[in-house]
Every structure is written in structure tokens, then in C-alpha cells.
């Protein structure tokens, strides 16, 4: 078999002596053929499940008709984009989405880093394990239950109001007051994700060379200085990559959770693009409209990621590409 291949490549070489580059490529391809073969399934999966369906995004520009199919349906251009942008609630939903996303990023992103750094400082292993386990738990609880618990905590005779009562505060039904919605949403988000988020950072921290800490101790550095000059730089690359990725998620608010948490009392701050499009689509499967809004959000999110990546490449050594 090997002889045959050699003969085949040999033949090629004779046939096209000029295209040296082409030749090299084939040679290297052939010598690594099994590696390519092993890549093939993964490549196919991405192609079939991530790229082929993208063609479906065309319905955002069409009056979709099942019988005619995606390609055959009538072209309506930017009709659905116009419909969304021209509705009187568009600005508010965009604003709410952005604010919720930015708050989640600003408060939610650093939280696991801080926790990871603190955990890293704990010397009693049993306590560290305990804290980790406890903080992981909420991640495994479904959002429906989380919101149910949140409603319980924030109810008139719930935990929050009991505590506020000790300081002589009047009870408030937090969940129907628009001014508390963002705090509750972001706060519960941190509660849900903080423990799980530390995993990557703790892994990165374990990569920091222990001799550095010893050397720093000899030089008389205190714990704060060690954290600042050794631990933090050690997790910086991970942090930057995760940050770039999470910037892409600013517009992708957890629509399910908002749906569960909001009510007419909090529409003012809670009604995001996702929930609004859901309500407008209730009238009966408006795939085109949802696809159009979804596409719009994806494009903007992608631009966010690109911009952050560029900034990061400019100011640090880490970037996605």
C-alpha cells in the first residue's frame, strides 16, 4: 500500500514539476492522511449542525411558506427589521436589554475571579472544599426553581423583608417593583453562577509556579502583594479570553429567566427584546420576525466580540485570534 502511494506521488511529481507548493501540500496532506481522517467527523458535525442551518436565516428576509420552502418563499427584504425598529417599544426594550447585559457583565464577570482569588488564599483545605461545593450548588438548580426561591425570598414575609424589618423598614414586594428588578436579576445571576465560574480560574491559578510565591515570601512580600503580582497575572490570559467571549453575551440576556421573573408591574425595566418578541409572536408562530430580530442581535454581538478582541490585541498579548 505504501509503495503504491509513493508511486502515485512520484507520478504527480513528474507530471507537474512546476507547482512546487501544490506538491508540498499534497505530500504533507498524504503523509498526515489519518490525522485528517480523524478530523473529518468533527468537521462534518460543525458543517452539518452549525453551518448548514445558517442558510435558514434567510427566512428573516422572506414571507416564509412551508410548501414553497425557504428558497422559494417570497422575498420581503427588511420588512421585519422595519417592523421591529418602528414599534414604539423598540427603544425601551433595546435599552433594557443593554443595561441588563452590561450590569450582568460589570458585576457578574469579576465575581468568580474575586472568589477564586479568595479561595486560593484559604489554607484550610476542608473549608475551601466546603465553600466550593456550596457555591457550585445553585448552578445545578433549574432557573425555574431559582426564580421560585427568589420570589420566596423577596415576598412580603420573606427573608429580605424580615431582615429589612429589623432596621424598621416597611416591607416591599420586591418582585413587582421596577426599581429592584435589575438588582434581583443580576444578583441572582451571580448567586447562580459564581461557584461554577471559579473552576476555570482555579485551574489557571494552579498553573502559577509555586516557586514564585516562595521567592516573593523571601523578598518579604505580604499576601496582598503576592496576590497582586503573582496570582492575578497568572489568570490574566484566561480572564481576557473569557471576557471577550462574555462581551458577546451582553445582548443575549437569559430570556427564560426574565420571562419567569417579570410581570406588568416591572415591564418598565424588565421588558427586554426577547420577551417583547415573544409576546408579539404569541399571535402565532412568526418565525420570520423572530429570525430577523435574532439575526440583528447576533450581528451586533459579533461586532462586540470583534471590537473587544481588537482592543485586547492592542493593549495586551492575549486575544482570540
Amino acid at each position, binding site marked *: 500500500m505504501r509503495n503504491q502511494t509513493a508511486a502515485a506521488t512520484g507520478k504527480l511529481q513528474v507530471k507537474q514539476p512546476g507547482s512546487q507548493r501544490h506538491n508540498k501540500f499534497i505530500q504533507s496532506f498524504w503523509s498526515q492522511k489519518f490525522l485528517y481522517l*480523524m478530523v473529518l467527523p468533527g468537521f462534518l458535525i460543525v458543517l452539518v449542525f452549525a453551518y448548514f442551518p445558517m442558510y435558514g436565516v434567510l427566512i428573516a428576509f422572506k414571507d416564509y411558506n*412551508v410548501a414553497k420552502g425557504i428558497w422559494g418563499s417570497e422575498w420581503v427584504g427588511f420588512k421585519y427589521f422595519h417592523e421591529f425598529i418602528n414599534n414604539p417599544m423598540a427603544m425601551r426594550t433595546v435599552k433594557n436589554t443593554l443595561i441588563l447585559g452590561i450590569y450582568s457583565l460589570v458585576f457578574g464577570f469579576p465575581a468568580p475571579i474575586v472568589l477564586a482569588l479568595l479561595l486560593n488564599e484559604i489554607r484550610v483545605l476542608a473549608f475551601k472544599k466546603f465553600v466550593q461545593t456550596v457555591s457550585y450548588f445553585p448552578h445545578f438548580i433549574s432557573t425555574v426553581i431559582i426564580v421560585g426561591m427568589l420570589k420566596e425570598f423577596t415576598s412580603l414575609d420573606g427573608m429580605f423583608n424580615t431582615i429589612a424589618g429589623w432596621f424598621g423598614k416597611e416591607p416591599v414586594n420586591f418582585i413587582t417593583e421596577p426599581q429592584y428588578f435589575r438588582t434581583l436579576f443580576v444578583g441572582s445571576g451571580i448567586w447562580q453562577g459564581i461557584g461554577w465560574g471559579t473552576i476555570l480560574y482555579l485551574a489557571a491559578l494552579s498553573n502559577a509556579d509555586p516557586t514564585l510565591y516562595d521567592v516573593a515570601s523571601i523578598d518579604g512580600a505580604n499576601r496582598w502583594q503576592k496576590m497582586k503580582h503573582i496570582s492575578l497575572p497568572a489568570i490574566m490570559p484566561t480572564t481576557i479570553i473569557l471576557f471577550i467571549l462574555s462581551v458577546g453575551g451582553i445582548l443575549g440576556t437569559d430570556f427564560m429567566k426574565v420571562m419567569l421573573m417579570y410581570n406588568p408591574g416591572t415591564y418598565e425595566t424588565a*421588558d427586554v427584546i426577547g420577551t417583547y418578541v415573544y409576546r408579539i409572536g404569541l399571535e402565532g408562530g412568526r418565525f420570520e420576525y423572530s429570525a430577523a430580530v435574532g439575526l440583528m442581535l447576533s450581528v451586533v454581538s459579533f461586532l462586540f466580540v470583534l471590537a473587544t478582541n481588537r482592543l485586547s490585541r492592542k493593549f495586551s498579548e492575549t486575544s482570540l485570534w
Partner: protein
Amino acid sequence: MKKTLLGMLMTLLLISTMLSGCGSGSGSDTSESKTGENGTDHAKALNLKVVIPHFGGDPTGTIVQQEYEKEIQNYLGTEVKIEWTRIPWGEYSEKTKVMLTSGDIPDVMLVRGQDNIIKFGEQGLFVDLSQYMDKMPNYKTYIDATANNEQYLMNEKKQLFAFYDGSTNPTDITPSQYAAAYRLDVFQKHNIKVPTTLDEMYDAAKQLKTLYPDSYPVGQSEQYIEYEGILNANHTAGGIYWNGEKYVYGPTEEAYKEALMFLNKLYTEKLLDPAFWSDNMDEAKSKATSGKTFIYPLLWSGYVADFNANKQAGVTWALAMGADNPKYGKAWKSGSEQKGKGVGNGSGLVISAKSENVEQIVKLLDYQYSDKMVDLLMWGIEGKSYEVTDGKKEFLPALKNSDDFVGELAKLGVSVSMRTRPGIVFTPQEAIAKYTSIPDVMFYHDGKAQLENYWFASDKYGGKESIAPMDRAPKIMFTKDERDLRANTMTPIDTYVKESAVKFIKGEMSFSDWDKFQETIRKMGDYESVLKMYNDKVKQ
């Protein structure tokens, strides 16, 4: 050489497993052809693939399902082999929407939403049943009995795509499954009058607040009910509705404003639960059984049995007709049912245009609308689930008196259990079976409370005046463009109205700004043109 061969084999194996993973369709194909081969043994056998919802109980093997299968084979005169796929009700819409959008549907399936039935029907996915009218005598009686059926069920070309969700009420009662509810034991203990009017409701709430300062006497059970209990008293509604003469938009009416003013009065005096907008049954149930809530202006009647079943709490809730506003007369009841036969266009069984044996399938589905089959599915089998006394059917006392009446019905596969539903659902609901398949609850009327069937009680005490005009509205249908127009216009308006209503009730918006509120509604969108669209349809 050996090594490479092995490597080659390994990678091939890898790829083949990957590919077989991708093509889940290929697996079912082979099984299909197998059943096909079996089918050829009985040349006439009718093979069917059916996708229907599952309501928690599997009817397979129950006596009613077995009888059903026997009956349809006798009726069609051939063997009928049905491959059932039952999808849980909660995810049914979503899952089937994907099937519909892809165009890959079974021979028979239940489709939810008239929009979908018309939309996909017009696109050629379903059989047009109007071609088979003479082949479905039973279903035709249901169609004929449905008012305005051409507009309500068919498209402009008079095509009919579904066997719609039928119901039959052989008597002439028009009951509702919603009522007001009161903590009767507390009302009696303190000698408070059970309200019959909104003013009395306010007085009762006030007395209860002084007795139980920690409580918020008036509560909410489900968000979707919104302010309906009060709006019903004022003869209006929270959205577009038929007022007996034409379609109007409730929030623009004086009666709607008065309802909000009443709620605002309750709220400012701390008689209305601040969680009125966020509570659902989970929260409501604990409040109802722990002395935090004493009054529900409107409640799904079935919940009262749940509250009272909590022995530890030891509470007694009683239903009553919704409180009236004397200015408007008797309060409307929510969703009162019709007498006679009819269908609702909320969902229907469709036949795939690609099916073979369409005629046989039509015949089979039509048979489900025959009185004989309706009785079998809804009542079960005489002597096993029901008995007939004086020409009236009644479920067996042994079942009725058991701890879990509905559970016993489910075990037999009686459709009225709502849990275990035999046949290709939805099959027509027979009203009396439905009404009598629930245990009696306390119902208060005219100074006394007694155990009653809440359906019958709401008919008896409500009378004809309590039927809301919107429950007898002329049935109209919109095209896709009209529906889009309605969604684009009404969604922002409804959003604004709902959040403003909360602000009016909480006092964050003043009623002196009502005109400004109306003006903003008009600025949000042209709801009048949507109303015109509705009313023009009626004239047609």
C-alpha cells in the same frame, strides 16, 4: 502495513458511527419498511402514524382504549394498526411546530392554533376536508351546529383542514368553571357578610384587615386572571372584546377606569395584596391556607377543593358568583359554556396530504364524533364506569365515593379524567360527563353554603344575564397579514396599558391623568383601525 490497516479500520469505524449518529432518520426507515412487509399480510389493514398529546396518563391497555380499538375496526371493516406517538401536553405546541415547519408530518396529528391549521393547510400540508363532507356525517353535525362556521373554521376558499376540538352539551345549561371565592369559616366566625357586590367586598375586606392586620384580604391566584373578577362586575374586559353590539377595546372605556379606581381604593388601604401581579398558584395556595388571603374576586373553581383538602390548615373556602356592580347589573361569569354541539378552533386533528387511504382515515376520525363513540370515550363502559338511572348517566357511586375519583376514572381510561384520554385526541367532550366527574365543593348563595357541583351551581345561580357577550361573540377569522397588523399594533399598546394599570392601582399614576393615558394609547398605535378590522369582519 498491519498498523495502517488497523488505523484505517479504526477511522472508518469512527466515521461510520458518526454518520449513523447523524442520520437518525435512516433507522426509522428500515423499521418502517418492516411494518410495511407485515402489512402486506393483511392486504386491507389500515396503517396509521398518529401524533397526539399526552396528558400524564397512558391509555394503552385500558378497557376503554381496548373497546375503542375494537369498535373502529368493526366500523371500518378492516384491521387498523396505529403507531401512537404521544407528546406531553406542556411541550406539544413547540415540538409539533417544528414538525409542521419542516413539513414532515404523520398521517394524523393534532395541530394547535387555528393560525397554524390555516397557514399550513393553505400551504398544502393537510387534506382539504371540504371535499369529503359527504363522507363525514357525524362531524358534519358538529360543523353545522357551530355558528358562523364558514368564517370561523374555513379559509376564504371554503377549505376545511381539521377535525376541530368538539364539544356536545345535550342539556341547555351554560355553566362556568370560574367563580369568586371566600374564606367562609372566617366570614362566619366574625359574622361578616359574604359579598354580593363590589361595595360589600370592600367592606368585608376592611373588616378583615382590622381583624387580621398582617393580612392582605384580597388576593390573586394566577397572573393570567389579571383584574377579570372586577372587570366582569363592570361589564368590560382588559383587551379587545365583543360587547354585544360591536368589538371594543376595554381599557378605553369608563367601566375599565372605574374598575381600576376600585382596585386603587383597595390598594391604598392595604386591602389588595401587593403581590397581586406576581403571585401564582404556588404562592397563592400557601396564603389561602395560612390566613393571609380571604377573598379571590375570581378563581378557577377547582382550586377550592385543593385549599379545603389541606387538613392541617383547617380552612373552609366557599365559591360564590362573582360580586356585582349594581351600576352594571349582574356580574358576567368567565367563559360560560354553550349548549348543544359545536367545535372550537383552538386545535384540530389534521390528515397529512401525503397519506394513503385518506377516505378510510376520514371515516375513522368522523366516527369519533358519533354519539356512540363520544359516550364510550367520555363515560366509559356501562356497569364498569357508569350506570343509567331514569335515562340519566351517572358515574358509579363506588368510583365517585373513592378517595381519588378522577384517578379511578383515569385507570379505566375514561377520557373525562382529563389525564388518560383514549382515542385520537381531541375527541369531543360530552359536557355532562365533564361536569359530573368532579367532587362537590362548598358553594355559597343567598345566605347559605352547601356542597354542590360548581358547574351546575354557576348555571343555576348565574342565570342567563350572567353570560358575557364576549362568550357568544360572532366568530371571525383573520388572514396572516391581518394577524400581523394586529400583533404589531396591539402588542405595544397592551404592554403600555398593562404597566399603566399597575401604576394607576398603586397610585403612581393619577386618575386625573386619564385623558393623557388615553392619548398615549392612541400615540402608541392605531387601535381604532384594528377594531374597525374586527367590526368589518362581523359585517361580512
